[in-house]
């Protein structure tokens, strides 16, 4: 009787329920669109077509998705260790600083394929260090990681403003950003892959960071479910007491998890900085860290789910931009409302429909929910 509701087959758990949640989110969003006097069906068509209709749209969608995969993985790794890392935003920002230092000093002397690995290491290291301080304070002082990471987002923002209007700004420039990188620090685009399928692309920022993101998703899966470190993180995440009992050091596991989380956050900066803008500008992260929280939750902390959720949010970003352009009554804020609804139904209200679906499954086919007919085996 420890499980009042029987479990569902995997396809329903990971496919059907998210689909229902998502549909409800879009239906409610449709009402919001109706409320401002637009046709929700036309809006939906514009949104989806804007994101996937043309090659350029797809490339933009995947470009945004790349960013969200990194931040989503970052949040998920910490969450598996029951640490709510809200500092992904700041860690990504500081990661950008690491990339800036590498690119600005090396871009005149080296090709991209030498600079890229160095920049990956620098981005990861800077992000990890920005995660280390809150982790240390949590492990040694008990300062709550949610509070400290939020504060570190503000510190990161201030530090970056200070540097971008000072030391990192080229003399005489009015813009708070670094000089543009030379060709040596520009990452190759992946647009040709989409063009292979016959689509036309004008100019889109999709670059090889997308592949790096997919590799990292695989490595995170490997880390969490196949390594001793991941096992220890999950043990601590589910039950600190069990971790203590199993001889897992609380300090070590908190610091390690947060540094990995920070490293993934830092690597997010590679995508916009080296793949798109070719400079580090003020506020280039622009909320992607917070979106990462939603992506991680919606992806149920699993890398496959995170990749899919990141693509969904990429779609909302890209399609939403098109929608705001095509329908003047729908402002960018409306897009945020729609994103909020997705987060609400897919994240916070995730379990709203679950009991009904479980009851349905149980009544239609008890076997499918893994129950043998009740003749259990006492002991």
């Amino acid at each position, binding site marked *: *009787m*420890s*499980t*009042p*509701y*029987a*479990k569902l087959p995997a396809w329903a758990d990971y496919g059907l329920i998210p689909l229902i949640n998502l549909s409800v989110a879009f239906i409610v969003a449709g009402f919001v669109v109706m409320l401002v006097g637009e046709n929700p069906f036309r809006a939906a068509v514009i949104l989806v077509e804007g994101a996937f209709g043309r090659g350029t749209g797809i490339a933009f969608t995947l470009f945004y998705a790349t960013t969200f995969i990194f931040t989503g993985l970052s949040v998920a790794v910490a969450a598996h260790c029951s640490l709510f890392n809200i500092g992904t935003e700041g860690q990504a920002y500081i990661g950008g600083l690491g990339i800036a230092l590498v690119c600005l000093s090396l871009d005149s002397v080296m090709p991209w394929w030498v600079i890229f690995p160095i920049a990956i290491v620098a981005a990861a290291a800077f992000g990890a260090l920005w995660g280390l301080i809150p982790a240390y304070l949590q492990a040694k002082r008990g300062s709550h990681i949610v509070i400290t990471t939020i504060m570190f987002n503000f510190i990161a923002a201030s530090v970056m403003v200070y540097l971008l209007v000072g030391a990192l700004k080229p003399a005489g420039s009015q813009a708070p950003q670094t000089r543009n990188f030379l060709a040596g620090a520009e990452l190759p685009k992946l647009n040709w892959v989409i063009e292979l399928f016959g689509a036309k692309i004008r100019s889109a920022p999709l670059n090889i960071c997308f592949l790096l993101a997919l590799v990292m998703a695989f490595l995170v899966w*490997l880390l969490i479910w*196949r*390594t*001793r*470190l991941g*096992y*220890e993180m*999950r*043990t601590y995440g*589910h*039950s600190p*007491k*069990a971790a*203590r*009992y*199993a*001889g*897992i*050091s609380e300090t070590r596991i908190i610091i390690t998890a947060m540094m990995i989380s920070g490293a993934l956050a830092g690597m997010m900066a590679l995508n916009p900085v080296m793949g798109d803008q070719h400079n580090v500008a003020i506020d280039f992260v622009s909320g992607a860290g917070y979106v990462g929280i939603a992506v991680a939750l919606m992806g149920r902390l699993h890398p496959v789910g995170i990749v899919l959720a990141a693509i969904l949010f990429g779609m909302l970003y890209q399609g939403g931009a098109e929608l705001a352009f095509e329908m003047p009554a729908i402002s960018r804020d409306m897009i945020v409302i729609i994103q909020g609804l997705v987060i609400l139904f897919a994240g916070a209200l995730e379990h709203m429909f679950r009991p009904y679906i*479980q*009851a349905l499954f*149980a009544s239609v086919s*008890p076997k499918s*929910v893994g*129950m043998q007919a*009740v*003749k*259990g*085996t*006492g*002991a």
Partner: protein
Amino acid sequence: MAQAAIELIGINKSFGAVRANRDINLEVARGTIHGIVGENGAGKSTLMSILYGFYQADSGEIRVGGKPVSIHTSNDAIALGIGMVHQHFMLVDNFTVLENVILGAESDALLKSSITKARSELDRLEREYGLEVDPDAVIEELPVGLQQRVEILKALYRGAEILILDEPTGVLTPAEADHLFRILKQLKDQGKTIVLITHKLREIMAITDTVSVMRQGTMVATRTTKETTVGELAELMVGRRVLLRVEKGQSEAGAVKLSVKNLTVKDQRGVTMVDNVSFDVRGGEIVGIAGVAGNGQSELLEAISGIRHAVSGEVMLDGKPIDLTGKADPGELRDRGLAHVPEDRHHVGLVLAFEENENSILGYHDDERYLKGPFLDVDAIMADAKDKIEKYDIRPANPRLKTANFSGGNQQKIVLAREMEQDPGVLIVGQPTRGVDVGAIEFIHKRLIAMRDQGKAVLVVSVELDEIRSLSDRILVMFAGRVVGERGPEATEGELGLLMAGVEHQEAAE
């Protein structure tokens, strides 16, 4: 024939595909004490929750005093004169007795009139039923026995004629339990009806008039208590014959394996929980520590296993000291042959969200048998888990199943299998059979005795006196953090009960 206070007719209740109650019929006669026994998960609590309005039955009828009723909330139940004393008390710890009693039954926006009314009413109830409690005492300062009395008062204050008690003696000393039974008998004499849910068969025999047995969601039998035996009830509960007391031979105690000297442990608040405790455990013997929960046994186990910081003292494992600063790595102690089955398997001994095979390596996950470099050797872990499942008859035999979906007994077997199969020199076990069903208790006891017979040193802490007496070669009794006595296995329950209540200890101190 006495009129029925409660009749349940054809009650069905399913949770998803799990049928917790199947066609249950139950009739409780007015003015009697009716026991309901069954293993964990037999559906007792579900049935009572339906009666108390926590759950709705899928089908079936409830009659109270002969009239069909529908009970949707606990307020409905209270209005019908049904009161419930929960296993885990529903009291506000920093409120007084009086405030707790009126909680939810305040008659006015201002408390004054309710308090005045409650005070005189409590006074009457106390006199009538011998339920003495100081109405102005704060709950957290009362011993559990009195807290439970407050729960009973709460129910009576709300006009309960039918009282349901869910595992009421789990937290009580034998003396407190006796007192509770006297109160229940008095209530019965005044015409109240009492339903007692328990898994302790001796209590059923001692106090009930009739007893119903549940197994796997069905009501398998109802007996008049005088005409049945403990053996018959146990058999009905489990569905087969059960050995209530495990046979064991003479112990052959060898060298001292675990030695505790002058150990003192404080809790987070700085209260001394273990006070200057010394004892030895030899190879080939089981030492049992008896005591009412909360007298320092948990802290003692945690200090020995390196989880909790000790203030002073010395613990030797195979003649070599254990680091007691709380910085000791429990993993290192495992390497030195100290295995620990913790009291709280839900939060400490297991990670319930893990698959069974993942739990079967908890604490031994850094053992190279289970690793390939930094990676877990999934095949080896799986093979190892399957092996343990077979050896310990863990059911269902599925190493991929989530641990939370195993029954209490099988969860405990997962922990035991993990710790025993490492072939430790010393095994310390907290509450080996808490929340474990009768069939599994027998299995676990046999395993512990087998460990002893292999020459291992076994230290068992349990609040179940029967268990301590049936397993131990020597019995230590803890009270208020001290070891207040040592007895042989032939010690009577009364003798141990007095020690557990600190009687002898207090006399000695005077």
